[in-house]
C-alpha cells in the first residue's frame, strides 16, 4: 500500500524532535494570532517569512502551516468567550458560540469547537494524502497551455469569491500581474519597468508586498478604530460536553468537515468561505432553524469543523498543481520559493520527505492543538488584555527587521512602507488587496506558460480552446465569471461575505 508507506515516511520526518518543536511553535503562534483581533495569519506568516530563512525547508513549511490552522482554533476561543472573532473565519462562531457562553455553557462550546476541529483536521489530512497522488499524476500531463488556463481559472475563482465589485477584483489581479513583471525578463534578461533603480532590477520582493499590504496597511486601518476592548469574564464550569451535546453535533461535524474539505480545494476558497457555507447549510438542514443564533451547538460544531478542514485541504492545489488557491497559500508559495523549491507536481516526486512530512505534521499539529488549547483557554483570554497600542509597534519593528534581514537593504524597508500606503489606499477605495497578491504570485508563472504555449502553438492563441483540458478549464472560468456578474447571485454573495468589524 503506497499511501501507507508514504505516510510512514511523512511521520518519520514530522516526528523528528526539531520538526515537532517547530510544529508546536507554529501551532502556538497561530493560536495566539487567532486570539488577537487585528493580527491575522496573513500578516503573521508574512512577518515570519524572513525568519524561516535560517530553517531547513521542511521545518519552515511545517511551522508556517501550523500558523494557518492554529489560527482557526484560536479564533474560535475568543468568538465564544468574548464575542470577538479573532479571525474572519470565526465570525459565524460568535452567533451561537457566544450565546452558549452566556447560558453558562462556554465549556461545552469550546470543547465541541476543539473536537470538531480535530476531527476535521484528521479527515482532511487523509483527504490531502489520498488526493495528492492522483492529482499530481494529472498535473504531470499538463502542458503550458493547460497550466495557463488553470491559472486563469484559479484567478477567476478568486474574483468570484472576493467581496464587492467583480470589475474591481479583476483590476486588482491585473495590477498584481503587472507588478510582478517589474524587474528582469525571465527569457531575455531585459530590465523591465525598473526605472534604473538597482534594488528593483531583481523584481519587487514578494515579502515586501505581503508585509506592506497585510502588515502595515492593517495597522493604519486598525489605528482609526477605537481600541477599547472589554473582556467578559466568562465562567468556565465543566469543559466536558454532555452525551446529548455530542450526539447533536456529530452530524454537524461530519457535514462541516465534508463541506469544508471541498471548499478548501477549490481555488479562491478557504477557511472563511467554508465556515459561512457550513453554518448556512446547517441552518437549512436543521429541523428547527429557530434555535440557531440562540446557542445551538450545531452552529458551533459545523463552522469550526469546516474552517479547519478547509485550511488544510487548501494545501492540495498548492502541493499538487503549484497553484495557490488563496492569499495564505500564496504566502506559502513565497516561503517555498525562498527555499528554492518550485511548487508543483514535481515536489512530491522529487522531495517526498518534504511533501509527506508536511502532511503528517498537520495531523500532529492538530493533536497538539487539542491537547494544549483546552487547558490554556484562560491564558489566551488574558492575552486579549494586551492593548493594541503596545501590540502594533511590535509588529512594525518585526516587519522592519524581517525585511532588512533578507537583503540587508534599507531601501526594501521603505519599499514595504510604500506598499503599506498602497494597501491602505486600496482599502479606502474598496479594492481588495488579496486578489492583487494572488496575481502578483502567479504573475511570473502565468507569463512564462503563456509565452511557451504561444510559442508551441506557433503564435496561434486558439491553442487554449482547441486543446481539450485547456478548453474545459477556460469554459469553466468563463461560466463562473458570467455567474458572478449576474446580479441575483451577487446580492446573495454580498450578504454572506461581510467583513468582520472587530
Amino acid at each position, binding site marked *: 500500500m503506497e499511501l501507507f508507506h508514504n505516510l510512514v515516511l511523512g511521520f518519520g520526518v514530522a516526528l523528528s524532535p526539531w520538526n515537532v518543536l517547530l510544529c508546536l511553535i507554529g501551532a502556538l503562534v497561530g493560536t495566539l494570532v487567532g486570539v488577537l483581533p487585528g493580527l491575522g495569519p496573513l500578516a503573521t506568516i508574512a512577518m515570519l517569512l524572513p525568519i524561516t530563512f535560517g530553517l531547513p525547508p521542511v521545518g519552515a513549511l511545517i511551522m508556517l502551516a501550523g500558523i494557518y490552522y492554529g489560527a482557526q482554533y484560536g479564533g474560535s476561543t475568543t468568538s465564544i468567550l468574548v464575542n470577538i472573532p479573532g479571525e474572519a473565519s470565526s465570525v459565524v462562531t460568535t452567533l451561537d458560540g457566544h450565546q452558549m457562553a452566556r447560558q453558562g455553557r462556554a465549556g461545552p462550546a469550546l470543547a465541541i469547537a476543539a473536537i470538531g476541529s480535530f476531527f476535521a483536521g484528521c479527515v482532511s489530512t487523509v483527504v490531502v494524502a489520498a488526493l495528492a497522488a492522483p492529482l499530481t499524476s494529472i498535473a504531470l500531463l499538463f502542458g503550458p497551455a493547460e497550466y495557463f488556463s488553470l491559472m486563469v481559472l484559479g484567478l477567476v475563482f478568486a474574483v468570484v469569491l472576493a467581496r464587492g465589485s467583480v470589475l474591481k477584483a479583476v483590476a486588482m489581479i491585473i495590477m498584481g500581474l503587472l507588478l510582478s513583471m517589474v524587474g528582469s525578463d525571465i527569457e531575455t534578461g531585459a530590465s523591465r519597468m525598473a526605472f534604473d533603480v538597482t534594488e528593483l532590477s531583481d523584481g519587487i520582493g514578494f515579502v515586501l508586498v505581503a508585509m506592506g499590504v497585510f502588515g502595515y496597511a492593517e495597522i493604519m486601518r486598525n489605528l482609526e478604530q477605537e481600541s477599547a476592548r472589554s473582556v467578559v469574564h466568562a465562567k468556565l464550569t465543566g469543559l466536558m460536553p454532555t452525551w446529548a451535546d455530542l450526539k447533536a453535533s456529530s452530524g454537524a461535524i461530519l457535514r462541516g468537515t465534508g463541506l469544508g474539505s471541498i471548499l478548501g480545494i477549490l481555488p479562491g476558497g478557504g477557511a472563511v468561505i467554508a465556515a459561512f457555507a457550513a453554518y448556512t447549510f446547517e441552518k437549512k438542514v436543521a429541523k428547527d432553524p429557530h434555535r440557531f443564533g440562540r446557542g445551538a451547538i450545531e452552529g458551533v460544531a459545523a463552522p469550526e469543523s469546516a474552517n479547519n478542514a478547509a485550511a488544510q485541504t487548501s494545501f492540495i492545489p498548492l502541493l499538487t498543481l503549484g497553484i495557490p488557491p488563496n492569499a495564505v497559500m500564496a504566502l506559502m508559495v513565497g516561503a517555498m520559493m525562498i527555499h528554492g523549491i518550485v511548487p508543483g507536481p514535481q515536489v512530491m516526486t522529487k522531495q517526498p520527505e518534504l511533501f509527506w512530512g508536511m502532511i503528517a505534521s498537520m495531523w500532529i499539529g492538530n493533536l497538539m492543538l487539542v491537547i494544549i488549547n483546552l487547558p490554556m483557554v484562560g491564558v489566551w483570554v488574558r492575552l486579549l488584555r494586551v492593548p493594541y497600542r503596545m501590540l*502594533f509597534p511590535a509588529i512594525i519593528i518585526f516587519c522592519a527587521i524581517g525585511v532588512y534581514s533578507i537583503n540587508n537593504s534599507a531601501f526594501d524597508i521603505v519599499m514595504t512602507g510604500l506598499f503599506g500606503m498602497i494597501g491602505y489606499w486600496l482599502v479606502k477605495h474598496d479594492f481588495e488587496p488579496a486578489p492583487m497578491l494572488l496575481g502578483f504570485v502567479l504573475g511570473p508563472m502565468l507569463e512564462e506558460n503563456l509565452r511557451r504555449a504561444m510559442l508551441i502553438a506557433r503564435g496561434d492563441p486558439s491553442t487554449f480552446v482547441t486543446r481539450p483540458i485547456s478548453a474545459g478549464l477556460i469554459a469553466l472560468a468563463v461560466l463562473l465569471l458570467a455567474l458572478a456578474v449576474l446580479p441575483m447571485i451577487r446580492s446573495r454573495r454580498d450578504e454572506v461575505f461581510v467583513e468582520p468589524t472587530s
Partner: protein
Amino acid sequence: MSQEVQEADASAGAPQGSLKITNAREFYGGLALVLLGLLALWASRDLAGMHGIAFGPGTAPRMFASILIALGVAIMAVGCVTQGVPLERYEISSPTLIILSYMFASSSGTTALLLVAAVLLIGGIILGVVGMMGPRRALVRGPLFITLSIIVFAVTMRPLGLVLASYLSIVAAAAATPEARWIETLVWGAVLTAFCVLLFVYGLGLPFQLWPTTLSWETLLSLR
C-alpha cells in the same frame, strides 16, 4: 510605478470639469489605475514587442497595462453613473511624499534626482506639520508616524546599529496613536528591543551590527 497611484491620490481633490462625479470612491480609484497603467506603458516603451511568433519582454507588460487602463476607465465610468457611498476619509499625502523622497534620494543619485528628493521631503514635512496642527489631525497621525518609524529604521540601521535603530523606530511608531503613554512607551520600547536582539541576533544568528560602528564594544575592547 506605484508612485503614480499615490500622486493621483494626492491630487484627488482637483475639479473634473463638466463630468458629474457621483461616486468619488470609484471614480478616483479607477483614475489611479488608469494612471498606473499609463506609467507602466511609459516604463515599458523601450522593450521589444512581438518577435515573429514569440513574445518579447515588452509584450506581456503592455498587454496587462492596457487591460488595466481599460478596467480603470470602466471603474471611472461606474463612478459617474452610480450613486456614491461616501468615500472613507484618509490623509496620506505627507507620508507618501516622504517615502518618494527617500526613493528618489537613494536611487541613482544624480543632482537632479537629489533636488527632486529634497523638494519632496520639504513638501512632505510641511504637509505633515500642517496636517498635525489642522482639523484632520486624527487622520494624519497614524500613517504619518508609522511611515516615520519605518524611515527612521531604514536611515539609522546602518550607522547606529540594531539596538538604537529599533528603539527609535518603536518610539516613533508608538506616537501613531493618541492613546500613547510616554513612560510606558519608553519602557516597552526597551523590552521590545531586547526581545528583537535576542530573537534575531542570538536566536536566529542574523549578522546584524548591534551598536554604532565607532562605539561598538569590540572596538572599545580592542583599543584597550
